[in-house]
């Protein structure tokens, strides 16, 4: 089967690639998941009888740096996508690796933050703030971890020659997932961290 006829099978009646449409449908459903987690946090964050409370533990400067890191990883993955679309596999590998490192740095910040919170007496079962906070940010962190594994798998596939410039759509689909993780963090950073005194 030729590449053209093979590619033809991936298009829906709308004329869009069904793998890309599938990723957009996943993203739309994930909006509901994170929407309910965020509203649960907003409802319960100020209803704890015992501390620590949000203002006692949340560290805005540290989280601002991790937010910047995640935003820049979105920048590096579009450069990776652009590189593979141009047939520049060396550039693709460089940018996809930088994106994965950006994701790992973000996870490092989150691990540091969670460890500090535990030392300050805030765990998943301490109070309703802790439960809703760890559920929300932990779910997001899990998404980042899945994204990092996906990024590294693309990187190693490329090294082994299994991912070539013909596989740009695979990178495009992965990039959509990564940007979604980024936009959800944009909302979490504002609602959880910057609304801390509201």
């Amino acid at each position, binding site marked *: 089967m030729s590449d053209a006829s093979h590619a033809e099978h991936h*298009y829906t009646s709308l004329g869009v690639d069904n793998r890309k449409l599938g990723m957009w449908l996943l993203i739309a459903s994930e909006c509901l998941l994170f929407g*309910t987690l965020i*509203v649960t946090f907003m*409802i*319960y964050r100020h209803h704890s009888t015992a501390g620590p409370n949000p203002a006692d533990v949340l560290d805005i400067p540290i989280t601002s740096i991790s937010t910047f890191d995640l935003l820049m990883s*979105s920048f590096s993955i579009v450069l990776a996508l*652009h590189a593979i*679309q141009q047939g520049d596999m060396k550039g693709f590998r460089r940018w996809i690796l930088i994106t994965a490192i950006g994701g790992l740095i973000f996870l490092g910040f989150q691990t540091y933050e969670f460890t500090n919170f535990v030392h300050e007496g805030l765990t998943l079962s301490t109070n309703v703030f802790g439960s809703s906070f760890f559920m929300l940010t932990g779910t997001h962190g899990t998404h980042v971890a899945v994204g990092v594994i996906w990024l590294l798998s693309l990187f190693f596939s490329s090294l082994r020659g299994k991912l070539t410039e013909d596989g740009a759509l695979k990178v495009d689909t992965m990039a959509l997932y990564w940007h979604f993780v980024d936009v959800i963090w944009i909302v979490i950073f504002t609602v959880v961290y910057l609304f801390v*005194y509201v």
Partner: protein
Amino acid sequence: MSAEPHGHAHEHAHPGPATYAKVAGLLTFITALEVWVFYMPAMRPVLVPVLAVMSAIKFSLVVMFYMHLKFDHPAFTRVLLGGVFIAFGVFLWLLALFTFSHPMTNGPLV
């Protein structure tokens, strides 16, 4: 028979690294502005609307330029907006329900 799907007529070329870099600069600037606003006592009365608008701008920039919704088939935009509107509706409904009428939230919990 042409293998070109008719939906491609709706799509435009994606931007290049220069545009991506400008968007990255804007995202960095808005994030720095958010943190500045957070620490300014004078901004406290308008903190929520100001930060919500800045967050919405960042969200839109990533979705339009990095996720290419500004350039891709409109079906993708409809799918995303569908999810976002339903999520926002559920968000407002739960917030109203548990803030104003649910007995569990009238007082402190555990």
